[in-house]
């Protein structure tokens, strides 16, 4: 059992390495064909790499601490299915406070789901992380004006909450359907 798991892990690592190598090769080929793009591609890659290597280890340590120290019961209580409006507000707050690109939030969201947060709250958390950021709103205010910023912020919050609840419904519906068909199969055996 354990060996099988290890083997699977190794296969995934090899596959990942192959995809990374392939992407690097494609990148090098593109740079050789279009040498005038080299500067900007390398510059962008460097900037994103630095951003990533600065934030990622910290985020991973937070996830590690969270996974060991925060109990399932707590997450379930504050962000679970029965958390209601409080859960929604918390999810928005958790998403809006930290800064950083959205892809950083995915591993955090996964950890929260594993600890019992509801799907609606997770979708709301991710969306808040994506576009309800306090520093971001300040920049938007400065460049696009108060009316544009408040209108977009208000509409985003409303739609994001609706989307979270909707996605939870759809997934619940799918799972129910899956259970039924599964039950039918079991019954025929």
């Amino acid at each position: 059992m354990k060996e099988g798991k290890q083997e699977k892990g190794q296969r995934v690592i090899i596959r990942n390495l192959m995809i990374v190598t392939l992407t690097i090769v494609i990148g090098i080929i593109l740079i050789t064909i279009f040498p005038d793009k080299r500067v900007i591609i390398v510059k962008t890659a460097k900037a994103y790499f630095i951003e990533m290597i600065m934030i990622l280890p910290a985020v991973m340590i937070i996830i590690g601490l969270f996974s060991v120290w925060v109990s399932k019961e707590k997450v379930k209580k504050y962000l679970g299915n029965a958390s209601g409006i409080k859960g929604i507000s918390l999810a928005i707050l958790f998403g809006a406070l930290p800064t950083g690109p959205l892809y950083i939030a995915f591993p955090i969201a996964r950890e929260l789901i594993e600890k019992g947060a509801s799907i609606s709250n997770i979708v709301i958390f991710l969306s808040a992380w994506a576009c309800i950021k306090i520093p971001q709103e300040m920049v938007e205010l400065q460049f696009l004006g108060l009316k544009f910023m408040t209108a977009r912020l208000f509409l985003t919050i409303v739609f994001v909450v609706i989307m979270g609840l909707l996605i939870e419904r759809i997934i619940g519906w799918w799972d129910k359907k899956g259970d039924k068909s599964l039950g039918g199969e079991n019954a025929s055996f």
Partner: protein
Amino acid sequence: MTLLVDIKKAKQSLLVAVKSFFRIFPTFIIILLIISILLGFIPKIIIARIIGQQSGIGGILLVSLIGAILHMSAIISFPLAASLIESGASITAVAAFITTLTMVGIVTLPLEIKEMGAKITILRNSISFIIAIAIALIIGLIL
């Protein structure tokens, strides 16, 4: 006694941290390369030109799609959006662009599927896309 327990727990957290780091790292590298190549081949000026020229529902769809494909930090996108409005782009198009840019991530789809599962990822991205257009249309109406 409690200190001992805490050291054990701390080690465990660190282990989780290292593991999740290596689980995600290759996907990050791939995303980073794709973003760099995309931005390398589609400079900001061209994006601005495309968005500035668009109007009507078709135009807004196209602008939203560009926002969904591109990956740019929001802080960079606001000055770009402001210069677009100044040079005559419609508010609706700009709002659609900013909203899909932040909420929908086609480039980061592999990572999102890996972490969140295909169901949530596909639902979240497609509904966000529709929402972005709805938000943009409402902003266009009220502003």
